[in-house]
């Protein structure tokens, strides 16, 4: 899951080398923290948060399979 978010984010931004994703796992929920270059923040969030929302939707669909919740945080 971590790799997927990293891959998608890298494909969207101008500075793919500055993309990093870290995962904080809990019992039921795991939190994915996505860090990108400052210029690219808007690209991973999207107009009215549309890109961020799409990524979260896909995360929740994929975590339904393993019966867990995944939260995506985009860190400034």
């Amino acid at each position, binding site marked *: 899951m971590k790799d997927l978010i990293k891959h*998608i984010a890298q*494909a*969207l931004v101008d500075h793919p080398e500055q993309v990093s994703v870290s995962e904080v796992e809990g019992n039921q929920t795991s939190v994915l923290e996505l860090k990108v270059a400052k210029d690219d923040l808007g690209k991973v969030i*999207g107009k009215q948060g*549309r890109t961020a*929302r*799409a990524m979260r*939707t896909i995360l929740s*669909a994929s975590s339904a*399979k393993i019966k867990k919740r995944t939260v995506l945080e985009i860190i400034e």
Partner: protein
Amino acid sequence: MSPRLEFEGKDVAKASQKACEELKIPKEKLKYDVISYGATGIFGLVGIKKAKIRVILPDLTSEDNTEEKDLEHNNKSKKHVPEVERSTEQASLDDKAIASMPDESVNLGKNVLQQIIDLITIDAEISFEKKSDQILFYIKGGNVAILIGKQGQTLEAMQYLVEKVVNKHSEQRIRIQIDVEGYLEKKQNNLKMLAGRLAEKAKRSGKPITIGQMNSQDRRIVHLALRDDSGVRTQSVGDGFLKKLLIFPRKKYNRKRKT
């Protein structure tokens, strides 16, 4: 007597421009009479009339010459701007556009989509189809319910992300559509039926009816479904990518005056 052709447009300038494009005549050489100037109506909504011009074609021999010249010129300059026309040389241009659509885009899209799908479900297969500016992905197998999501939201998210990724690496704009086992078609039919039903309701009650929160593709389907219905008109309102769609009943006297 030289042949004449009629062209319509928003105003005379637009109409003459259209004539130039279609006949491939430079603007200075175009001879035309104005039949009607057209009117923009009130707020561009009510009583729009198109401008009409009648183009007088120059005698055929000279026209043939200019056309040939223009064709050569077109082939050189127009390659990257495929237009929607039904002439043969235009069709071949379209073919070129399909061929020139980089395979990298398709592969890139397919890879991203495959990654997403593999994470969501197992045993799903992707096939694709290329159209002039569009790639259609078909997903088969796997857990269809999760792939589509609540009201198709997962499907939409995948479509949006793949489109973003592909267009980031492509010069020309490519539209992506993803279909999971006929879901798209089913949804389209449902929307058309809903549109028809609500249009009837609007006509009966004489009041506008709202369909809430739709994305652009869904709105387009409704607009197109009700385009030929003379009893109603449709309009999108709101901000952002999710907008409301209003269906207005047309006033009765308006309709009578027209027919």
